[in-house]
């Protein structure tokens, strides 16, 4: 083999390898230690042919799980490895330490360091440790088996493109584009996606809004086929019918969304929320209406809030009963007169009441109401007068995954 085995080099390789992990993390890629260990396994099995380009593809397919993250990965890879001129040697140094039994100690140290760092990063430690132990066990047995990295180098069994013997490329071109060529092309930039919240998390939160009618006090009207069959079988084949309460989600949802000017920066977030609600098909009923800054005597049917395209708020109270759970989404940012003046609504009629009175009517008509605020101030914020006052009426949560989860729990609590 051509490379020189010195401690310096090994440590350089190790450092470069573990640094890569942190570079990925700082670029916003959520790489788990489990995936990292899988990558080590791939390396120790010689799946990269000790070529940087193949290392690029292998690490990407193991560490990145969405095309939207390819760009972030490219950036991290470029930052970490751009100094490397030659395609082959440095990776070999980098990978070599992994497969030396005497390096296991180092590996241990390194893992411990990772674990400590990871703890700061709030990674599930149990998961990590369990996987790590398992992985170490596997690795030991592989070493005992004598499949040393150097031993296998001369005839790496992997590689559809071939042409790599002992780490030196012998003629022909590999089927891959060079890693840097790929990165240079910036193909995946358009896929990039920096939304902090994803729709799935919202949907998961809405899952909490479940109340099965089996738990309610209603008559048993449905034939429970499974139980009937089981009971009949247990009964030696003589029919025994079992009835059950119909099992349906009884939760009905009323979504009232602020569509005022100050909400424009949050339109994507609101869109996500709306999508999540409409994708959650487990509700018995979902109704959505819009308002402008505060709720008054009319609620609009569309986010454009056009005059005339509305329903009476009173009509809403009469038609959608108190068992609807209400989620109000708004930034609660308004001038005091919008909340306290009987003529405070500058877009439409007030109906003889102030905004505050309308909000109190909502509170009286519905047992369960929460207010989701995309820009809620943390803690007390007396300078945001309207927000502070509305908090007196409704439980207010920040429109984030955690906030939404908390709000859903609030909606499901028994009174």
């Amino acid at each position: 083999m051509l490379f020189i085995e010195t401690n310096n080099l090994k440590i350089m390789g190790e450092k470069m390898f573990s640094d890569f992990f942190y570079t990925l993390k700082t670029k916003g890629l959520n790489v788990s230690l489990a995936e990292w260990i899988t990558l080590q396994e791939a390396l120790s099995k010689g799946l990269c042919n000790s070529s940087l380009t193949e290392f690029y593809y292998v690490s990407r397919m193991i560490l990145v799980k969405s095309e939207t993250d390819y760009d972030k990965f490219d950036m991290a890879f470029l930052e970490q490895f751009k100094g490397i001129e030659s395609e082959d040697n440095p990776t070999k140094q980098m990978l070599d330490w992994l497969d030396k039994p005497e390096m296991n100690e180092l590996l241990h140290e390194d893992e411990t360091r990772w674990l400590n760092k990871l703890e700061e990063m709030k990674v599930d430690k149990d998961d990590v440790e369990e996987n790590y132990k398992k992985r170490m066990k596997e690795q030991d047995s592989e070493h005992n088996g004598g499949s040393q990295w150097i031993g296998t180098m001369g005839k790496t069994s992997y590689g559809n493109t071939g042409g790599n013997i002992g780490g030196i490329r012998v003629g022909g071109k590999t089927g891959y584009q060079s890693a840097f060529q790929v990165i240079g092309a910036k193909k995946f930039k358009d896929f990039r996606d920096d939304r902090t919240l994803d729709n799935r998390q919202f949907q998961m939160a809405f899952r909490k809004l479940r109340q099965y009618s089996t738990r309610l006090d209603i008559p048993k009207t449905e034939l429970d086929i499974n139980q009937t069959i089981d009971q009949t079988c247990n009964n030696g084949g003589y029919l025994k019918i079992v009835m059950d309460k119909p099992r349906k989600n009884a939760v009905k949802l009323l979504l009232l969304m602020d569509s005022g000017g100050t909400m424009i920066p949050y339109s994507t977030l609101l869109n996500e929320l709306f999508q999540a609600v409409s994708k959650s098909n487990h509700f018995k009923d979902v109704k959505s209406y819009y308002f402008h800054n505060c709720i008054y005597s009319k609620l609009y049917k569309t986010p454009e809030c056009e005059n005339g395209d509305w329903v009476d708020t009173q009509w809403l109270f009469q038609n959608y009963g108190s068992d609807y759970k209400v989620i109000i989404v708004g930034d609660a940012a308004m001038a005091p007169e919008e909340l306290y003046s009987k003529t405070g609504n500058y877009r439409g009629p007030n109906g003889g009441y102030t905004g505050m009175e309308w909000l109190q009517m909502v509170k009286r008509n519905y047992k369960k109401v929460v207010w989701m605020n995309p820009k809620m101030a943390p803690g007390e914020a007396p300078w945001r007068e309207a927000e502070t006052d509305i908090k007196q009426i409704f439980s207010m949560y920040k429109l984030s995954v955690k906030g939404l989860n908390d709000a859903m729990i609030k909606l499901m609590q028994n009174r």
Partner: protein
Amino acid sequence: MGQKFESTNDYVASDNLMASVNIAVALQKPLLIKGEPGTGKTMLAEAVAGSLGKKLLIWNIKSTTKAQDGLYVYDTIQRLYDGQFGEEGVDDIAKYIKLGKLGDSFDSEEQVILLIDEIDKADLEFPNDLLWELDQMEFYIHETKRIVKAKKRPIVIITSNAEKELPDAFLRRCIFHYIEFPDKELMEEIVRSHYPDVEDILLKNAMETFYNIRSIRDIRKKPSTSELLDWIKALEIGGMSPDKIKTELPFMGILVKKDEDLDTVKMSINS
């Protein structure tokens, strides 16, 4: 390592797609394939099976599919019938346990390829329900107290259209590959693998039109590989003269399915 996956006569795979398959096999992890509709995600599994000479089991996921369906189903009704008519072997529950696709792939004497097709069609929790089974390659049948363990670890290929996002715990366990839309070179190779005798000039004009249409910004549903293949076939059968393809856009309904897209295409090609 044993056999390796390579492009077949009917299926042209890019190099790094082939590498993903081989690495997933080497690391014994499920391979998750994502990509635009019509990029041949499902066909990949067939090609892998063909190339490695292994049997392919397909588990088609629908919105009502439960994880349990893939493991086993206990046919209680059959047992009830048999009990009423005094059939033999009613006391043997094992007779009424029917293995699902995943169960079959574990139980097979030979290594098989298991395709879990369109996993994102199912309920949000579906992938999580399969974590243990895919990790450990075993499950437990309560009724018969039997553990079904994979005799030969199946090669699992999972496809997703990204209709729903998949849970992180599931993604962590997979090797991921995103099938990019083929560039012109690869596309030409793909078309030729299906229609070896296609006329050069027809292919050239059809491909140019096809990529032009795909590059129109306002188009809602971009035509895909399978639609291009159908279109070229129609052009061949219809005997269109190749120089009219670009201007007259014959059989456009094959490439573009939405009315509003059809108008957009006509406007942009004419201008």
